[in-house]
C-alpha cells in the first residue's frame, strides 16, 4: 500500500497564506520577509513536484474539505492538468521572487519598502500564489470564483504598488474590467445552481446532460465570456496592454505568466468536463484567429518593448484557445504543453526586460541601442527566450506550435485550416516583432547620442548584480529544459489530455469513492 498523498493538496494553499500572514507581521524587517517568502515558495515547488508525481502515477488526488461529501462541500482535486499547472506556476513564482529579492536596495524597494506605509509586496505575492493554486485545484465553480477573487485582489495591490498616478490610472482599467468579468462569472454560477442544484464540477458534468441543450449552451456562453475576459481573448483583450506595462518588472512578469493562463485553465476545465455536448468550437476558433492576428499586429506597431511583449502575450493566448477549440486529444495535449512553455517564456522575457531597463535606463527601442556590445549577457538572455517565443526550431515554442498545427490539420474543417495558416503567419510576425526589437535595441549603433562600449548617458542605470542575473538565467535554463525534456513532458500532457477527454478518471475520483475522507 503506497502512502496517501492527498493530504498534501491543501498545503499548496495553506502554506502561502501562512507565509503572507507572517510576512505582513514582519513588516519592516526585510530579511525576515524574504526568508519566509523564499522558504514558502521553495516548499510549494517541492510539494507540487510530489503532487505531479502522485497524480501521474496514482490518479487524481482528491480532498473532501471538512469531510463533507461532493454534493454539499468543497472538493479539492489535483489531476494531471492541475498538477502540471501548479508546478509551473510555483517555479515561475520562485524565480520572480528571487529576482525581486536579488534587486536588493534598488528602485523596487523604494516603492515597496521605503515610502509605502506597509511593505506589501511579499504578502501580496504570496496571496497571489495562494489564489492561483486555489483556482487550479478547486473542484467546484464557486471555489473557483473565490480563487479568482483572491488572485485578483492581490494583483490589484501589486499593480498599484507605490500608488503613483500612472499606476493608479492603469490599475483602474484593470480593476474595473476584472470585476465586471467576475460579476458575469458570479451571475453564471447563480444560473448554473438554479438549473442543476449543484456547483460541484463532477456532479455538474453528470447533471448538465439531463437538462435542455439550449439552457446548457446559455450557461456555457456566460462562463466562456467571464473566462475570456480574464484570458484576454480578442474582443475582450483591450485592457491588458493598457494595464501591464506600468507595473515594476517582477510584477509584470508574474502577471504575464500566470493571470491570463488562469482564465485559459478555467476554459480548458469547463469545456472538457462540463460542456462536451454544447461546445462553441467554431466561435472559439474565430476568436482564436482574431486574437492571434490582432494581437501580433499590435505588437509590431509598438516601439516600447514592454508594450510589444504585452501584445505578443495577447496574441499567443490565441494559440491556446486554438488548441481548446480543436478539442481533439492531440489539440488539448498541445495546448497544455504550449501553456507550460508560454508561462515560462513570457515570464522570462519580462524579467529580461527588467535587466534591459537596468542597463539601458529605458524600455523604449527609440532610446536604446548597442546593448549587445554593452552587455552581451543580457543580449544572450534576451535572444534565447525571444527565439523560443517566436517558435524557431528546436525550441519548445516550435514543438508546441507543430502540435497545434498537426491537430488543426487533423481536424480538417476549412476554419481549422484557416487557423493553421493564421498561426503560421502569427509565428512569422512574432519573429518579425522580436527581430525588430533585437535590431533596434541590441544591434543598432549610437542611437540618440549613446556612446558605444561605455555606460549609457542619461536616464538612471544600475549595475547588474548576480541577484537579478541568476534568477533570470535560471528561468532561461528552465525554458531550455522544456525543450530538452519535451518528450516526457509531452507524454504527461497527452495523458492529461486523455484524462480530460475521457472524463472518467476525474468523475470516479470525486464521486466514486463514496465521499467520506
Amino acid at each position, binding site marked *: 500500500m503506497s502512502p496517501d498523498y492527498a493530504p498534501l493538496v491543501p498545503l499548496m494553499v495553506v502554506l502561502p497564506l501562512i507565509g503572507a500572514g507572517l510576512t505582513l507581521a514582519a513588516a519592516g524587517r526585510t530579511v525576515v520577509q524574504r526568508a519566509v517568502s523564499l522558504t514558502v515558495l521553495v516548499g510549494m515547488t517541492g510539494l507540487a513536484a510530489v503532487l505531479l508525481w502522485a497524480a501521474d502515477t496514482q490518479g487524481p488526488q482528491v480532498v473532501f474539505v471538512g469531510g463533507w461529501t461532493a454534493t*454539499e462541500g468543497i472538493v479539492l482535486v489535483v489531476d494531471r492538468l492541475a498538477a502540471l499547472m501548479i508546478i509551473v506556476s510555483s517555479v515561475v513564482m520562485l524565480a520572480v521572487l528571487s529576482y525581486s529579492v536579488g534587486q536588493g536596495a534598488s528602485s523596487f524597494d523604494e516603492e515597496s519598502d521605503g515610502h509605502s506605509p506597509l511593505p506589501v509586496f511579499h504578502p501580496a505575492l504570496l496571496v497571489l500564489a495562494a489564489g492561483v493554486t486555489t483556482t487550479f485545484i478547486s473542484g467546484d465553480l*464557486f471555489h473557483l*470564483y*473565490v480563487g479568482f*477573487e483572491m488572485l485578483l*485582489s492581490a494583483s*490589484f*495591490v501589486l499593480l*498599484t504598488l507605490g*500608488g503613483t*498616478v*500612472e499606476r*493608479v*490610472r*492603469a*490599475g*483602474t482599467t484593470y*480593476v*474595473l474590467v476584472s*470585476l*465586471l468579468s467576475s*460579476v458575469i462569472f*458570479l*451571475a453564471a*454560477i*447563480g*444560473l448554473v*445552481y*438554479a438549473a442543476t442544484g449543484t*456547483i460541484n464540477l463532477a456532479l455538474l458534468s453528470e447533471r448538465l446532460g439531463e437538462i435542455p441543450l439550449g439552457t446548457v449552451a446559455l450557461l456555457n456562453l456566460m462562463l466562456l465570456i467571464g473566462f475570456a475576459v480574464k484570458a484576454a481573448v480578442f474582443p475582450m483583450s483591450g485592457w491588458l496592454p*493598457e494595464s501591464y*506595462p506600468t507595473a515594476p518588472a517582477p510584477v509584470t512578469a508574474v502577471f504575464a505568466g500566470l493571470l491570463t493562463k488562469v482564465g485559459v485553465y478555467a476554459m480548458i476545465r469547463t469545456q472538457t468536463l462540463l460542456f462536451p455536448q454544447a461546445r462553441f468550437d467554431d466561435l472559439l476558433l474565430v476568436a482564436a484567429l482574431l486574437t492571434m492576428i490582432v494581437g501580433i499586429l499590435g505588437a509590431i506597431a509598438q516601439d*516600447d518593448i*514592454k*508594450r510589444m511583449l504585452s501584445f505578443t502575450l495577447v496574441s499567443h493566448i490565441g494559440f491556446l484557445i486554438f488548441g481548446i477549440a480543436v478539442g481533439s486529444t492531440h489539440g488539448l495535449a498541445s495546448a497544455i504543453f504550449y501553456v507550460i512553455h508560454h508561462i515560462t517564456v513570457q515570464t522570462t522575457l519580462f524579467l529580461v526586460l527588467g535587466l534591459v531597463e537596468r542597463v539601458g535606463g529605458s524600455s523604449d527601442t527609440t532610446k536604446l541601442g548597442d546593448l549587445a556590445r554593452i552587455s552581451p549577457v543580457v543580449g544572450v538572455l534576451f535572444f534565447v527566450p525571444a527565439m523560443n517565443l517566436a517558435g524557431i526550431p528546436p525550441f519548445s515554442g516550435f514543438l508546441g506550435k507543430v502540435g497545434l498545427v498537426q491537430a488543426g490539420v487533423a481536424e480538417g474543417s476549412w476554419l481549422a485550416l484557416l487557423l493553421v495558416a493564421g498561426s503560421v503567419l502569427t509565428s512569422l510576425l512574432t519573429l518579425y516583432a522580436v527581430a525588430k526589437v533585437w535590431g533596434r535595441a541590441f544591434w543598432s549603433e549610437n542611437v540618440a547620442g549613446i556612446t558605444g562600449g561605455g555606460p549609457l548617458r542619461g536616464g538612471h542605470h544600475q549595475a547588474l548584480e548576480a541577484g537579478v542575473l541568476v534568477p533570470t538565467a535560471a528561468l532561461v535554463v528552465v525554458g531550455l529544459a522544456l525543450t530538452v525534456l519535451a518528450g516526457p513532458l509531452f507524454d504527461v500532457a497527452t495523458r492529461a489530455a486523455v484524462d480530460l477527454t475521457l472524463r472518467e478518471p476525474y468523475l470516479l475520483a470525486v464521486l466514486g469513492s463514496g465521499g467520506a475522507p
Partner: protein
Amino acid sequence: MILPITIGVLTAGAIYLMLQRGMVRIIFGLALLAHAANLLILSAGVTAWRGEPLPSRTGVEDAGDPLPQAFVLTAIVIALAVTVLMLAMAVIGHNDDTKRMPETGETHRR
C-alpha cells in the same frame, strides 16, 4: 415577480452608472451590479418565503436552501472589500480622466 424586477432595475441602474465618466459613479454602478448578481444567486435557492435553514427551528420541507446564502455571504464580503479598494483608487487618481492626457506609452501627435 418582485425579485426578477429588482434584479432588472439594479442591472439597468448599474449599467447606466458605469457608462458615466466619474470614477465614483462607476464604482457605485459596479456595487449595484454585484447586488444584482447576489440577488440572482439567492433567487436560485430561495424562490418562495421560506424559513431559516436551521434544523432545530425549521423542518427540512419549510427551510430555505442554505448553499446560495453561503455563496452570497462570501460574494458580499468580496464585493465590499473590492469597493473599498476602488474608492481608495478613486481618491488617489482623482480627476485624472478629465484633466490629464492618458499616459499609455503611446505618443499623441496633435
